[in-house]
C-alpha cells in the first residue's frame, strides 16, 4: 500500500470535519473522492499532505510509502510534497505565478527538490513539458501563464507536480474550470501518467461523471465520513448507501441515442435539503434528515458492511444489493 489511513480525524475547534476509520490505496491505483461542496472531500485530500488550513488539527495515522505523516513538521511535509506527492488544484490560473515565465516555474519545482546542474534542469523541464503533451516546449519556456489556455496551464501544473516523479498525485477538481473536450484531454493525460509511472492518483470531484471516467475506485464522502467505497463501476451502477444513490440520480446524465427524447423535460431526482454547515451535521448517520429511507436506528453510528469485491458501505438501511449471479452478468455485459 502506498497510502494507508487509519482513524483519521481532522478537527477545527470543536468541530470534527473529517472522520475516516480506514482508507488505503495501492501503488498505481486511481481513486476518486466524491461528495457535494461541504462534504469534506477536499479537506480529506489536503489533510493527507499537510495542506489543510492552519487551524485544522489532524490526528490518527496516515502512512505514506511506509512512513507516518501525522506529526511530521511543516518542513518535512513540504519536502514530501513536491517530491513524493504532487498536488494540482482546480484553478490553474491561480496556481501559476503570473509574473514568472513557464520555464522558470517548472525549473523551480525541480531545483527545490533535486540537485541538478542548470543544463540538466533545462533538459528535464523540456522532457516534462513533452510528457504532458505540450507542443513546442522550447517556445513555451519563455511564455507567461496568461499567454496559455486553461488546458495548457493545467498541463504545466501537472508537469510541475510530476517533476520529481511522485508516487502519488492529489488532484482537487482539476478539470472543473475546463471545457469538456479540454477536460477529456487532461483526464486522458492523468490516466496515462498514472499507468506509465505506476503513480497513484487521488482525484477529488463533485461530479460522478468525471470520477467514472478517471478512477478505478471511488470513495463517497459525506459529513466527513466515508459512506461508501468500492470499484467505481460497481458503486455507481449499484450503489448501496442512500447518499450515493441520491448523488447518482441527481446527476443529469445523457441518455443513449434511443432514449434521448424520453428524458428531456423529465424532472431530476433531487437530494432533500442541503449540506448542513460546519458542526451542524446530525449524530449517527450524517445523512440523517436528508435521507428518504431513514430508520430510528440511523441515530446510531452505522457499522461498515462489506459486500465482496472490495465494496463497502456504512448504512443502516441500504439499497438491496444485486446477487452474485446478476453482478456477474453485469460485469461481463
Amino acid at each position: 500500500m502506498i497510502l494507508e489511513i487509519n482513524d483519521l480525524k481532522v478537527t477545527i475547534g470543536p468541530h470534527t470535519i473529517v472522520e475516516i476509520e480506514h482508507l488505503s490505496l495501492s501503488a498505481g491505483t486511481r481513486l476518486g473522492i466524491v461528495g457535494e461542496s461541504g462534504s469534506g472531500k477536499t479537506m480529506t485530500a489536503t489533510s493527507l499532505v499537510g495542506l489543510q488550513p492552519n487551524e485544522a488539527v489532524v490526528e490518527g495515522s496516515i502512512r505514506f510509502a511506509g512512513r507516518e505523516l501525522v506529526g511530521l513538521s511543516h518542513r518535512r511535509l513540504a519536502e514530501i510534497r513536491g517530491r513524493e506527492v504532487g498536488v494540482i488544484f482546480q484553478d490553474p490560473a491561480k496556481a501559476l505565478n503570473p509574473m514568472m515565465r513557464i520555464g522558470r516555474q517548472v525549473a523551480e519545482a525541480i531545483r527545490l527538490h533535486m540537485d541538478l546542474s542548470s543544463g540538466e534542469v533545462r533538459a528535464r523541464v523540456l522532457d516534462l513539458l513533452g510528457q504532458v503533451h505540450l507542443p513546442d516546449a522550447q517556445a513555451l519556456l519563455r511564455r507567461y501563464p496568461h499567454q496559455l489556455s486553461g488546458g495548457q496551464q493545467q498541463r504545466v501544473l501537472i508537469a510541475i507536480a510530476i517533476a520529481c516523479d511522485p508516487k502519488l498525485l492529489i488532484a482537487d477538481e482539476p478539470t472543473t474550470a475546463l471545457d469538456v473536450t479540454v477536460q477529456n484531454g487532461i483526464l486522458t493525460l492523468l490516466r496515462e501518467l498514472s499507468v506509465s509511472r505506476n503513480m497513484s492518483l487521488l482525484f477529488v470531484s463533485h461530479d460522478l461523471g468525471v470520477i467514472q471516467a478517471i478512477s478505478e475506485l471511488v470513495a463517497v464522502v459525506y459529513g466527513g465520513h466515508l459512506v461508501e467505497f468500492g470499484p467505481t463501476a460497481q458503486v455507481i451502477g449499484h450503489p448501496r448507501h442512500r447518499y450515493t444513490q441520491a448523488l447518482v440520480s441527481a446527476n443529469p446524465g445523457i441518455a443513449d441515442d434511443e432514449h434521448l427524447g424520453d428524458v428531456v423535460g423529465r424532472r431530476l431526482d433531487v437530494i432533500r435539503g442541503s449540506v448542513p454547515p460546519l458542526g451542524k451535521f446530525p449524530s449517527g448517520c450524517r445523512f440523517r434528515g436528508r435521507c428518504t429511507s431513514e430508520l430510528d436506528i440511523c441515530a446510531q453510528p452505522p457499522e461498515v458492511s462489506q459486500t465482496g469485491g472490495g465494496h463497502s458501505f456504512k448504512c443502516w438501511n441500504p439499497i438491496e444489493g444485486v446477487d452474485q449471479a446478476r453482478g456477474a452478468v453485469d460485469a461481463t455485459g
Partner: protein
Amino acid sequence: MPLVDVRGLHFRYPSGGGRHNPWTLEGLDLSIEHGSSVGIVGESGSGKSTLVRILCGILIHQRGDVEFDGRPLEDWLASRPRELRRRNQIVFQSPRRSLDPRMSIRKSLSQPVRAIERRIPSDDEMTGWLERVGLTDEVLPRFPHQLSGGQLQRVGVARALSVGPEVLYADEPTSALDVSVQAQVLNLFMDIRNQLGLTLVMVSHDLAVISRICEQVIVMRDGQIVEAGRMTHVLSQPSDPYTAALVRSARLVSLEA
C-alpha cells in the same frame, strides 16, 4: 412566424474581443419558436453568451436582422425598450455576482418592476414571486452573502419572472452549483416552463444539462453556428465533426441517464 428571427447577424466587440473572444459573429441565422426550449452549447469563448446578450437587447449587433415578435430589435430599443425588456428576461451564471451585495433581496427583487413598470412592488407581491421559485418571504430582508448559491439562483429566477417575460434566457444558470443543487434549479426551470408556457433559451457548456431540458439545440464554435436542430437528432446523428467530438467528449464524462 417565429418569436425570434435572426438573419445574417454580425457582431464584433469594439475592442476586437481580446483573447477570450477573438472572433466575430458572422452571418448567423436562427429562429426561436413560441414556447420552445432551445439550448445553445459550445465551449467557452464560442460566442454563445454574446449571442444571447444580443437577442435580449443587452448588446447591439452591427449588421443583420434580428426580429423579436415581427419587429426589428432596433425598433424595439428605440421606441419601446421597456416592453422589450419586460418580454425578454435573463438569468446569469453567477447568482452572487449578478446581485448587488449591498442591496437586500427585497430591493434587488424589486428592481425590474421599478425599472420597467415604474412602480414599487408590495411585499405580498414579492412573496408570491418567491414562492413560485420555492423560497419564502424570509429571504426578503436578507443580503446575498446570507444565502446559498442555490437560493440566490432562485432569487435570480424570481426576479426575471417578476415582469412576466415571454422569453427567459439563462446563461449557464447551474454551472456554479453543486450537482444536487443543480438538479433543483434545473427542475425549477422545467416547472416554470410548464406552468407559464415560457420560451426558454439556455446557454450551457454542459451537453448533459441541455439534453435534459431542451428540445432544440444550437451548437456554436468560434462565433459560428456549426449545427442546429432537434436535440435528439443533433446528439444521436451529429452532421458536423465538431458536434460529434463534443457529444463524444460529453458522453465520456457523463453518467447514463
